[in-house]
C-alpha cells in the first residue's frame, strides 16, 4: 500500500472536511495528519499569548495620524470615503480639495474606503486613549509626518527663497519658523504644512548627503513630546532624542516653538543640523 505523499497530507490539512479514503485504512498516514493538526493547534495557542499592547497601538495610531492626517493626503483620502472620514474632517475644515481628488475617488474608491476604515478605527482608538498616553505617540506622529513628506502624494511648496517661504508659512500657519541655513551639502526640497496632534505645523524637507530629513516645527513644549532621552551637542545644547521605526528624532525649543529634525540617519549629525538651524550657521 502506498502512503500519502507530503503534498497530499498538506492538501488534506488544507481541505479540512474532505479526507481521502486512504486515511480510513492507513494508521500511519492518519497519525501523520493528526500530529500535524496537533502541532498546528499548539503553535496557534503558543502565539496566541502574543498580543499588541496599548503602547504599540498608540505608536501605530501616531504614525497613522502623522501620515494620513496631513493636509494633502487627508483631503484625498477623506474625499473618497466621506462617511468614514466625517469625524476627522471636523478637525480639518480648511483643507482645499484639488480637482484630481475626484478622479482619485472614482478610480480607487474601494482602496481608499479601506484606508478610511483604517483611519476611522484609528480615531476610535484615539478616543479611547487618555491625553497622558497620547504623549507617547508623539515620536510616531513626527515620523509619520516625515514619511508623508517623502511620499509622492505630498505636494511641497518648492520656493527656496526664505522670504517666499516665510510668507507661505505666515499664510498657512500664522507664524514663520526659523529658516534652515542651506549650502554645504544641504538644500531645500520644499516645505509644507502637516498636522501634529490635530494642529497645523510647518515642515521643511531638506536634501542632504546623508539622505532626506524633515524639520518639523510645532507649538508644543519639547517635554510634552516625551521623546525619551536627552543628549548634548558639540555646541553645548541639550537635545531631546527619540526614535520611531527606523527614524531618529532630535528636538529642541527655540523662539517659543519646538524644532524637530526627523530622518533615517544618525543622531549626532542631526544635532549638528539643529545647531546650524538654531544658530543660523551653515550645515555640515
Amino acid at each position, binding site marked *: 500500500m502506498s502512503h500519502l505523499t507530503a503534498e497530499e*497530507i498538506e492538501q488534506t490539512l*488544507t481541505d479540512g472536511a474532505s479526507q481521502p479514503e486512504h486515511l480510513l485504512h492507513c494508521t500511519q498516514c492518519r497519525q501523520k495528519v493528526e500530529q500535524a493538526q496537533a*502541532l498546528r493547534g499548539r503553535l496557534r495557542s503558543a502565539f496566541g499569548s502574543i498580543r499588541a499592547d496599548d503602547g504599540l497601538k498608540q505608536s*501605530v495610531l501616531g504614525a497613522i495620524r502623522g501620515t494620513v492626517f496631513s493636509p494633502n493626503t487627508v483631503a484625498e483620502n477623506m474625499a473618497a470615503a466621506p462617511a468614514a472620514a466625517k469625524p476627522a474632517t471636523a478637525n480639518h475644515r480648511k483643507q482645499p480639495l484639488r480637482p484630481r481628488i475626484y478622479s482619485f475617488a472614482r478610480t480607487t474608491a474601494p482602496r481608499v474606503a479601506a484606508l478610511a476604515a483604517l483611519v476611522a478605527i484609528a480615531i476610535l482608538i484615539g478616543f479611547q486613549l487618555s491625553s497622558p498616553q497620547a504623549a507617547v505617540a508623539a515620536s510616531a506622529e513626527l515620523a509619520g509626518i516625515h514619511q508623508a513628506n517623502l511620499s509622492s502624494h505630498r505636494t511641497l511648496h518648492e520656493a527656496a527663497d526664505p522670504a517666499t517661504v516665510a510668507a507661505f508659512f505666515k499664510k498657512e500657519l500664522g507664524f514663520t519658523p526659523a529658516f534652515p541655513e542651506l549650502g554645504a551639502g544641504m538644500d531645500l526640497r520644499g516645505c509644507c504644512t502637516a498636522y501634529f496632534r490635530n494642529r497645523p505645523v510647518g515642515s521643511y524637507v531638506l536634501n542632504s548627503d546623508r539622505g532626506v530629513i524633515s524639520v518639523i516645527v510645532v507649538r508644543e513644549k519639547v517635554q510634552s513630546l516625551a521623546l525619551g532621552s536627552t543628549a548634548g551637542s558639540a555646541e553645548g545644547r541639550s537635545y531631546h532624542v527619540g526614535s520611531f521605526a*527606523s527614524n531618529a528624532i532630535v528636538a529642541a525649543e527655540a523662539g517659543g516653538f519646538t524644532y524637530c529634525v526627523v530622518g533615517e540617519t544618525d543622531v549626532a549629525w542631526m544635532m549638528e543640523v539643529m545647531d546650524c538651524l538654531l544658530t543660523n550657521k551653515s550645515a555640515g
Partner: protein
Amino acid sequence: MPHLDSLLRTARALTANDHDARDLVQAACLKALESFGRFRPGSNFKAWMMRIMRNAWIDRVRHRKIVGTELSVDETLLPSAAEPSPGTGGEAGTSDFSTMLEQFSDQQVISTLMELPEMHRMALFLSDVEGLSQEEVAEVLGVAVGTVKSRVSRARAMLREKLEDYAREMGFLERRSCRT
C-alpha cells in the same frame, strides 16, 4: 485595531525578539500607508500587510549587511519532505505526541520554531498560525504555491523532530516512543 495582533506575531516570527518586532510593526504600518494605492481591492488585506512587513524586514536585514541565509539556501539540497528523516516517520502515537506538545511552554514552542530557517519558519507560521491559504502565503513570501507546500511540510517535519529531541532531553518523552 484589526490585524495588529497578527502583525505583532508575524514580526516576532521574523525577528525573534520583542523590541525588533515592535519596531518592525511600526515600520510596516508606515510603509503600508505610503503604498496604500497599490492595494488590490478584493485581495486579503492581512496578507498584503504581511507582505509589506516581510519586505520591510528584508530591507532592514540588507541595511544591516547581515543578509540571511534564507536567500542563499537551495531547497533542493534539503531532504525532501516526502522522505521523512530517520525516526520521524510518525511512529509516536498521536496521543503521545499531543501530550508531549502540552509539556512545552508557549515560549519553548516559539523558540523552537525560531530555530528553523526563515523560509521554512515563515511558511509554517503564516499557514498554521495565521491561517493564510497556500496562495496567500505564496504571495506574502513571493514564491510559488508548490514551494509553499513543500516548505510547510518540511518545516512541520523539522519542528516536530526538534520538539521530540527536546522532549527526550527534558524527559517528556521516552526514547522508545519515537525512535523505534
